[in-house]
């Protein structure tokens, strides 16, 4: 376990991920729709960085670019010193959709298959799959098929599957976005526990201020599309004491940042 100061201390040397002046868009009928105008931030090993922004600001697009699913129109994304990013298991992705699991594989097989597919031996894959299924509290459901699981359990499997790959960075695209508030809160707590134990680096997309504060070490705030990075805020431990002055201040700060365009920030996202 590292506290804030030690983590900042680690931030010398090279970042694991560096996004510089990145412009992202997708083509619709021949012309390009710019989603992300100019984004820049860094992620150091062991950090949990949250990409926070309003719906449609391109934060998911940015995550997909880091995952290697699409190329920037402009700018550079470099991961572990490489710039020709293709999708790879070193940046395991957890998606928002519940149907990201293979319906024809059981919970255990869903976690073990990616390990086999990336060259681990049968024994290693099954041993590791069991370990990570246990870590995410799914031991009782190893032989169930995805359609027999609740939404929260499906997302746990997806997290176990991604973690079992032992990625250098875990990319999470609003994994709790479709869950009810209670389940979401429980999974956030569990994720904190798991990431603390595995010390994995996390890049996490969310539109919820609460989620960003509970899970993040730092929050990268994006504006409306074509978005730019408005602010990068240290929030480590801010959610530790929900009544503390620091927490209230950080929350207010984030609300103000998101509401800059006169937009109503739904306080309901903050529970």
């Amino acid at each position, binding site marked *: 376990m590292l506290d804030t100061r030690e983590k900042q201390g680690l931030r010398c040397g090279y970042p694991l991920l560096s996004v510089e002046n990145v412009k992202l868009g997708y083509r619709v009928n021949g012309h390009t729709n710019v989603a992300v105008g100019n984004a820049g931030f860094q992620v150091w090993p062991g950090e949990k960085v949250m990409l926070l922004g309003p719906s449609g600001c391109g934060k998911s697009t940015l995550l997909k670019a880091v*995952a290697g*699913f699409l190329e920037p129109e402009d700018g550079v994304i470099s991961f572990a010193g490489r710039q020709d990013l*293709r*999708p*790879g*298991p070193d*940046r*395991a*992705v957890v*998606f928002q*959709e519940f*149907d*990201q699991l*293979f*319906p*024809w594989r059981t919970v255990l097989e869903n976690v073990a*298959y*990616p390990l086999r*597919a*990336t060259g681990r031996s049968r024994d290693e894959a099954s041993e590791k799959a069991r370990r990570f299924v246990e870590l995410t509290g799914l031991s009782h459901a190893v032989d169930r*098929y*995805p*359609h*027999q699981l609740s939404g929260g359990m499906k997302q746990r499997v997806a997290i176990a599957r991604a973690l079992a790959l032992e990625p250098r960075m875990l990319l999470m695209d609003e994994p709790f976005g*479709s869950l009810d508030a209670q389940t979401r809160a429980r999974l956030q707590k569990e994720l904190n526990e798991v990431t603390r134990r595995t010390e994995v680096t996390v890049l996490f997309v969310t539109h919820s201020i609460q989620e960003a504060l509970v899970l993040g070490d730092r929050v990268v705030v994006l504006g409306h599309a074509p978005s730019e990075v408005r602010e990068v805020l240290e929030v480590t431990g801010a959610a530790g004491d929900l009544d503390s002055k620091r927490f209230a201040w950080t929350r207010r700060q984030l609300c103000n940042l998101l509401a800059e365009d006169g937009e109503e920030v739904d306080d309901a996202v903050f529970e």
Partner: protein
Amino acid sequence: MQSLSRERTESTALPDTIGKKSGGGYWGRFPTVARYAVLVLALLGAWQLYVSLSGTQALILPGPVDVAKAFVEGWADGRLASATLKTLCIGMVIGMAVALILTAFATWTKVGEDLLSLLTSMLNPVPAIAILPLAILWFGLNPTALIFVIVYSITWPIAINVSTGFETVNPTLVMVGRNLGLGGWRMAGDVLFPAALPHTISGLRTGWAFGWRTIVAAELVFGVAGKGGGLGFFINDARYFLRIPEVFAGIVTIALIGILIEAIFNAVERRTVIRWGMMNG
């Protein structure tokens, strides 16, 4: 949004009593197999009773016992269905291969996609039996002509369904596959093919049903021409020589094989796509 739509379906759901048969209580308590067995026996009994009591000539309507005898004899000497099944199997295998090639072509290239959609929309409405005269002209009165029409009849439903299956694979699953760095073959075998399995099975089911009807019809035409073997020929030959129980045995065989193959498809579905929740049971 999700909870809204769920509420709506709940509010429009039928009350419990609607849709349930009245008097299902006593009869419904028996297991399915027993219920159907009783019905089949009752029908056979009624048939035998009618034949015995009405004094109908056995030449017009033979009793179930005579039909059963003819059925057993027909199977025992292999005249009844072995030729038909063999032709059908060859046709199915070739048809599946053709459908697979067309589908692969359609999945990987735009030209192939257009070609498949053009061919299916042009040729699918033409019943396979309608091209039998052409097949006879090209290949003569022999099994090759039969195989040709079977291949024709099953290729389109299979190709349409399988390519729809590949087109509608959940994009998130494809992204998961790409995230793992799966290569083309692995992606196809481990992600795309299983994801398209519900469509593939229903395509095979439709293809089989088309093929089965086509071969019986085509063999009847061959039977009229006095040529070849197989079910259609068996039925026509029996009619010609007034072996009426054999005519019935032929028809029963057609029904039984149809039921058997349906049962196989149902079993495959129960063990795969239904078990995996990809299709409702």
